[in-house]
């Protein structure tokens, strides 16, 4: 008998305007000691399945059909009291963000011991011993000391280990992990996935991993279930699904994952999903507005942007006295050059200082020391606002989070028009609006988009608005700070293609920041690797991927999920 069995599950969210079906006719089984992956893009209904199993659907959601069998007993529709005993005791949970799934005001010990006492009816000292052995099991060094610490004293990866210990401490039969490694760096992700696989093998629990990341699936899962808009499109062994998928959606989803092993001209689009709005219209720089007034004087200088010994400190301890102040060196003597028309990739894990470098270049932060040279002019030496604005106009930035990078209170047309109006790049308001419509058209949104507000758009569409706004100053240099890390793979492919097209047509110079090595390989001409605020290696993309010189680079490359090594060839 399977450990967990879902039969004909259907979840609906009734509302005033009819009922929305989030999940349709889902059937699957989970054996003990098995890891099942549920993969799909945002809105596919993956998390809804997990919530339905636990009886934690957000109101007004209901499971209108089907049943959930745990060890042969039906557990859906149980009274709340009984369900509470199953959650945590028989079904454990691991959530996405280790920062918010632990109580910051309690030590790890309090949280573990409380859970153990509730579910296993252990005494205080017995529970404590069990808690320490759990921490040891998930690979936390010196568990008897660390157990007294608060969550903020652990790093992200360590915290996720604590969350895993917490979910395992009541010896559950099934563990549901919802995007367990999405918030973590690649190197930490690899460790956590290893740990999870080891624990499943050792303890024989059944695990369901919900993720949008094909890489995670290929690393850890025995079987995969692919979901698309509430439907299960395909279920099967990982090798089969990744290597030889039957369904066209699975096929296009896999092809949209940027390849790490070789460079391609364009990202294959996920055709199964709807076309990306209006297709991108090519821009002819000669007669287009974006090409006008580009009298930047050709390439006088060999490098368009040069960063010399850049340093940035953040104050961690404030004090009246200089000697008592403590600083964090976020950027430590970083130097690099970017040639006109080149795309430089900046790679590093979170906290390596790559975003700080971007903000130093475009003037959001003031450097503590060092120079930012743009087209032969040292920007850090410029005094007046007017002088700086001349250069500000020539460099623009695209931000990571499409939800906070647009002012929610402004219409899209006003957002895109703001830089044009401010820098007086058009003679009349009519002209401004015509340019805005044209820009929105070029990024594939259609001119009607201008009348709407940002919240009416999806993440990918918002990122297109961001790109249109960045282009509105007619920049020569574009900084992209993780432009696609908040997006689904299919949308990521569209946005990256758009950026590539624009880069070629407008001969833009770009600084492309990402933690995602396969994306970097597809987009960049040269790559610089950062670690702890320092630049550790800089090389041509192909050289770096084929023959990394630095140990850390090699380490990062090794951890890169290699989805395409599974069959397919």
């Amino acid at each position, binding site marked *: 008998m399977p450990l967990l069995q879902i039969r004909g599950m259907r979840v609906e969210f009734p509302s005033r305007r009819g009922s929305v079906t989030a999940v349709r006719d889902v059937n699957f089984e989970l054996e003990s000691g098995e890891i099942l992956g549920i993969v799909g893009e945002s809105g596919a209904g993956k998390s809804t399945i997990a919530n339905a199993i636990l009886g934690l659907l957000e109101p007004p959601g209901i499971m209108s059909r089907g049943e959930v069998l745990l060890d042969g007993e039906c557990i859906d529709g149980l009274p709340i009291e009984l369900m509470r005993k199953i959650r945590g005791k028989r079904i454990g949970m691991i959530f996405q963000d280790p920062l918010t799934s632990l109580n910051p005001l309690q030590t790890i010990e309090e949280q573990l011991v409380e859970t153990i006492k509730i579910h296993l009816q252990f005494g205080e000292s017995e529970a404590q011993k069990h808690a320490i052995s759990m921490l040891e099991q998930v690979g936390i060094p010196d568990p008897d000391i660390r157990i007294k610490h608060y969550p903020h004293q652990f790093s992200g990866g360590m915290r996720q280990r604590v969350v895993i210990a917490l979910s395992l401490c009541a010896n559950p039969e099934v563990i549901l992990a919802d995007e367990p490694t999405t918030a973590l760096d690649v190197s930490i992700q690899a460790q956590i996935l290893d740990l999870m696989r080891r624990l499943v093998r050792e303890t024989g629990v059944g695990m369901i991993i919900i993720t949008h990341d094909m890489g995670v699936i290929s690393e850890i899962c025995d079987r995969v279930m692919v979901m698309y808009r509430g439907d299960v499109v395909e279920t099967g062994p990982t090798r089969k699904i990744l290597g030889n998928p039957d369904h066209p959606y699975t096929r296009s989803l896999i092809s949209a994952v940027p390849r790490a092993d070789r460079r391609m001209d364009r990202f294959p689009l996920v055709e199964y999903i709807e076309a990306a709005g209006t297709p991108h219209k090519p821009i002819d720089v000669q007669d287009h507005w974006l090409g006008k007034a580009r009298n930047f004087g050709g390439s006088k200088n060999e490098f368009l942007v040069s960063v010399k010994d850049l340093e940035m400190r953040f104050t961690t301890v404030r004090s009246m006295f200089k000697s008592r102040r403590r600083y964090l060196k976020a950027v430590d003597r970083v130097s690099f050059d970017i040639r006109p028309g080149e795309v430089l990739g900046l790679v590093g894990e979170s906290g390596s200082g790559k975003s700080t470098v971007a903000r130093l270049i475009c003037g*959001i932060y003031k450097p503590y020391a060092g120079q930012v040279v743009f087209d032969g002019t040292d920007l850090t030496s410029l005094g007046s606002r007017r002088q700086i604005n001349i250069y500000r106009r020539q460099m623009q930035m695209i931000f990571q989070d499409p939800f906070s990078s647009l002012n929610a209170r402004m219409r899209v047309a006003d957002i895109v028009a703001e830089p044009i109006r401010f820098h007086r790049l058009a003679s009349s308001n009519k002209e401004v609006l015509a340019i805005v419509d044209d820009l929105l058209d070029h990024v594939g949104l259609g001119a009607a988009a201008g009348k709407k507000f940002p919240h009416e758009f999806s993440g990918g569409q918002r990122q297109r608005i961001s790109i249109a706004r960045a282009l509105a100053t007619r920049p020569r240099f574009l900084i992209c700070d993780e432009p696609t890390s908040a997006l689904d793979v299919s949308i990521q492919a569209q946005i990256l293609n758009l950026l590539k097209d624009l880069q070629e047509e407008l001969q833009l110079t770009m600084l492309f920041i990402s933690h995602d090595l396969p994306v970097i390989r597809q987009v960049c001409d040269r790559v610089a690797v950062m670690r702890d605020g320092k630049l550790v290696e800089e090389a041509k993309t192909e050289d770096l991927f084929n023959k990394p010189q630095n140990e850390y680079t090699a380490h990062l490359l090794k951890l890169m999920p290699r989805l395409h090594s599974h069959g397919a060839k």
Partner: protein
Amino acid sequence: MRDFLQRFFGGDLWWSFRSSPMVIVAAITTFVMIFSSAFANIVAPYDIFDLTQFNLMDSLKPPVWMERGEVGFLLGTDDQGRDVLSTILYGSRISLLVGFFSVISAMVLGIIIGLIAGYSGGWVDAVLMRIADVQLSFPAILIALLVNGIISGLLPGEAQADLAIYVLIVAISLSFWVQYARTVRSSTMVERTKEYVQAAQVIGLPQPLILLRHILPNVMGPVLVIATIQLALAIITEATLSFLGVGVPPTSPSLGTLIRIGNDYLFSGEWWITVFPGLALVILVLAVNILGDWLRDALNPKLR
């Protein structure tokens, strides 16, 4: 002008106004109260400033529907024989003037200080917020008394009675700005780190423009809520100050003074002197509150 009107009536704001009956009722109520108090000399049955129009013999008459009530005095009369309805109409003049203008000036002052403190941080923030803290540790009445005392001392005697109302407005707004400043500061600190603000910096917008165009609209929600609550508080504070003898003279009554005077007669059974001005105040505050809540939601594009 026609173009503007057309855009206004075709716009989202007008549409959301029209689709909510409660907001329409609130708007009409507010309008009627403002209108009738502004034109009290036409609307009111008696002129309470004209001594020939009232008679001590008429004092303490109950409302018209009660025994001993007279048709001439719809809501009864007070201890001096003045018609309660007329005193309410004349009285709301001062209350509304003081209420609206002190709230608006406190709001403007508080928002500016809050935006600057929240956006610049560092010692600017520290200094401004310590001033706010000091002020917060005194009761609002005390600060109003102090400001009132200083300003009255500086003014020549004959000007005092005429300017009393403006002194009140300054005094009340100087004691009310702290709440706006603190609220705006904390919201500004949250908004400041968001990427849309950084995007505006990269475009090159100067700081005042970023504050006004980008941050201000995003921090206005809680401000409008405080403003509608503080309108009632300002009217009450004006009453208290007038009661303490530092506000408007007793010969020109406001809603607050009416309520206070009426309080003395509550236990002897003449409830109408205090209840009707009180009701007028409650209705006004409720209507303005509803309008304020609607405006907050209508200005938020996410809720449309």
